[in-house]
Every structure is written in C-alpha cells, then in structure tokens.
C-alpha cells in the first residue's frame, strides 16, 4: 500500500463558478507604521475567513496588486484552497496608482478570458482600490477605463480612501454611480471582515442573481466636502 501519497490537491479539477476579487492596495511610504500593520492584519483575516468557508474557498479568486513605489502583482488570482498565508506588505515608495489600476484591470480581463476558455462560469468581478494618498503617476486613462468598465458591466469598482487620501482625485477615478468612501479611522479589520462576508454571500448566489450585501457603515463614511477639495 502507498503510505506516502502525493497530495491530491493540485490535480483535482475545480469546476465551481468563480468570484474574482481584485484588490489594488497602496503600501506606499505614507502607510508606514500602524496603517500598514492594520492593513496586513485585515488581509490575514480576509484570507482566513474565505478559506474557512466550504463554498467560497473553491469559488472566490483573489488577486493582490500593490503600488508602493512600483506596481507589483503580489498575488495572482487564486482560490483559497491552496493559498497559504496572506502576503505581508511593506510600506515604501511613491503611489503609482494609475499604473496599478490599469495593470489590475488588464490582469482581470486575462483571467476572465481564461475562465471562458475553460468553460467556467463567473460572477461579476469586484475591484477595490484602497489608498491613503494621491497618485504620483498619470491616472486619467485609468479613470477612463474604470468608467467604461463600469458602464459595460465588466466589474464593480470601489474606491476607498484612508485618512489623508486625495478624495478629489479618487472621486474622478471612481465610477460616478459609486463615489469613493472613506475608511473610518484605521478600521481595516472591519473593512476586510465586510469584504469577506460580502464575497461569501455573493459566491453562494446563483449566477446572475441580485445579491444584497451588508452595509458598509461598520467601516466606511462618506467623505466631507472639505476632504474633496485639498
């Protein structure tokens, strides 16, 4: 009898419909200290929560694109089945937000093409931009793509600004139907808990079904007009 079998995990197929989640995260130098620690803690909670759900772990695919100094795909689209630990982000560098948005959206389209190639159904992707600053690169084309993508129902785009973020620019990047929200204080944990609860709900829904997610009151507020005009 074979006592030392190789793990089956990588070889069993997973035909579950996919729920792609793209996280565009800002670990620029201004996030140093408590902010980046809270962000990392929130990410860990998100990974654990999705992995623990017997449906979501096979359906939710999460991609992390970071833009601290340079744009990096920190984690490609992958279900939580074999995800391992969440990456630990280190705060450094500027904020190439425009490039990060375009890189993330390009990657998302490639992933959707892969789903179609393999006959996998998928839910409308969620894209989250989380930043505490302003773009240090050109962002106008990225904003256009966000608006066009939303109009064409290619994804749902959420822009979330942490204390100190340039909400004026964020409001131009975010789709008009969904202006940016401000994270309450350092409520990263609450945000990622809401995110994991929301994707768990969506991933259990039927394809095409309208899903109601919990309110974002626990972690978000609408920015004040003074926060828009910096």
């Amino acid at each position: 009898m074979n006592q030392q079998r190789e793990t089956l995990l990588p070889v069993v197929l997973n035909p579950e419909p996919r729920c792609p989640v793209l996280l565009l995260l800002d670990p620029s130098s201004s996030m140093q200290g408590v902010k980046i620690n809270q962000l990392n803690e929130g990410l860990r909670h998100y990974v654990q929560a999705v992995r623990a759900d017997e449906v979501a772990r096979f359906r939710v695919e999460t991609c992390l694109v970071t833009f601290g100094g340079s744009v990096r795909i920190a984690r490609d689209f992958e279900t939580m089945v074999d995800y391992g630990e969440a990456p630990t982000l280190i705060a450094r560098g500027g904020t190439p937000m425009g490039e990060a948005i375009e890189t993330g959206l390009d990657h998302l389209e490639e992933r959707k093409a892969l789903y179609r190639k393999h006959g996998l159904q998928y839910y409308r992707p969620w894209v989250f931009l989380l930043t505490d600053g302003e773009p240090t690169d050109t962002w106008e084309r990225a904003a256009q793509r966000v608006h066009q993508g939303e109009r064409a129902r290619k994804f749902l785009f959420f822009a979330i600004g942490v204390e100190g973020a340039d909400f004026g620019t964020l409001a131009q990047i975010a789709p008009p139907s969904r202006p940016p929200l401000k994270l309450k204080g350092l409520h990263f944990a609450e945000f990622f808990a809401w995110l994991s609860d929301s994707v768990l709900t969506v991933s259990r829904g039927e394809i095409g079904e309208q899903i109601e997610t919990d309110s974002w009151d626990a972690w978000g507020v609408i920015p004040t007009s003074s926060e828009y005009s910096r």
Partner: protein
Amino acid sequence: MSTPIWTVVGASVMGVAHKAKGLPCQDRAWVHATQDDVIIGIISDGAGSAPRAAQGAEIVVKTFGKALLQVDWTRRMTRDDYLAILGRALTEIEALVWDSALTEGAMVDDYLATVTGFVLCPNHAAAFQVGDGFVVCRENSSEVFDTVIPPKQGEYANSTFFATSPGAVGDLQIWLADEDRRVGFLAASSDGLASISLHCRDATPGQDLFSWYERNLCWSHDPAVAFHDLESLLTNSPEINARVTDDKSLVICKRTQRI
C-alpha cells in the same frame, strides 16, 4: 505462472451526502479477471431520487456481469457483436425490473440505475454506457488520457438516461479501441467523480489527476489489498470529499508492462 497483463483496482463508496440523509450507497461496482487476462468491469449508479435504486444497480451489475462472462473473448468482437450482447442484457434487465416492480408493488422508475462498463482483453478493449458516468483511457504508447465514453446528460440539468428504463438500448454508448492501438490504462467511473475528473467545457480528462492515480494507487495483484486502498482513498480523502458528496464508484486497470 506468468504475470497477469493487467492490475486492477476498484471500489464503490457511499457519499457524505447519502450518509447525512441516511440513504444507502446506491452505487455498485463489480470487476472480474479471467485466467485469459480478460478484465470485465461494471459500475451501476442508482438514481438518488429512486427509492429502490440500490436494487436497480444490483440488477444491472449482476445481469451485465453474467452476460459478459458467457462470451468467448478469444475471438475479436465487432460493434455489432457488442450491440447484440449488451442489447440482450438490457432487455433482460427491463424484464427483471418489471418483475420486481410487480412483486413489490413498486414502479419501474423506482429502480432507476445507470451502467458504465468495459472489457479489457490483451489485444482489444471496449467500453459502454447508458447514463452519465465516464470512461477514460490512455494508449499504451502514449502519456495522454482521453475520454472515450463521456457522460450523457438528459435535456435538463442533473438528468440522464438509465439502463433500467424501457428502450435503454437506444441510449447505449459503445466504444471500441482501434485495432492497432493497445490500451495501457482505463478508468471507469460513476458520475460522482466527474466534477473533479473531467473539464466541464468539453469532458476531456484532467491529465494530472489520472497521472496521479497511476503513480499513487496501490497496484497490488491481490484484489483485496488494492480494493482496500482505493476504498480508503475515496472514503477518507479530504480533497475528494470536500468536492464530491455523491456516492463514488471507480474501477481502474493498468497494463503491467509498457510495450
């Protein structure tokens, strides 16, 4: 005594969903190896919604087993030969199900069960099916696995065809290996394992999974040892049972020597 050409593993286990509902295992698997190196395998999957499906699966396996054991496998069989043999078996199954239904005051549809089967001879191979199981093969000289009998779905989601239904011969799928090709590996399965084994778009097999089976299963010539190993895998594997809650039947044959 010469080494048998084939090693075979086979098992049929209850799914966690059936266990939770207090249902019996409605799958049956039967394998027989003759002294002439012929392997006959039959799997039957009882419909979950049919109250006497386990009985139906039992009737299917016994009837096909009896029919195929009576064949002289030293001569090469044509498609028409298989159609005749399998057709007679299906006719006999229909009669047996009717008799059982009359005796037990039940409906014919209470016994709904599929059939997925194969015959492996040293120099030729065939597989057949009425239902939504599948058969995957690898040629002896190749590393690539192919689906030779794909699942056959009915009009609606989760519907298929049954060997116990009247006129089942009209839904019979038959595959014969090409005359100049020798089978090196064959796996027959009920639909329980389809979701983790076949790509949903085109029912092609997951190459890595079937390679894994070749490398990792216990290929003992002692059927009891081999059965226990596969049964243990299908029953206890967290990777399989997280994805598959239905009853699972799997029979795999491997040629002992690559030619």
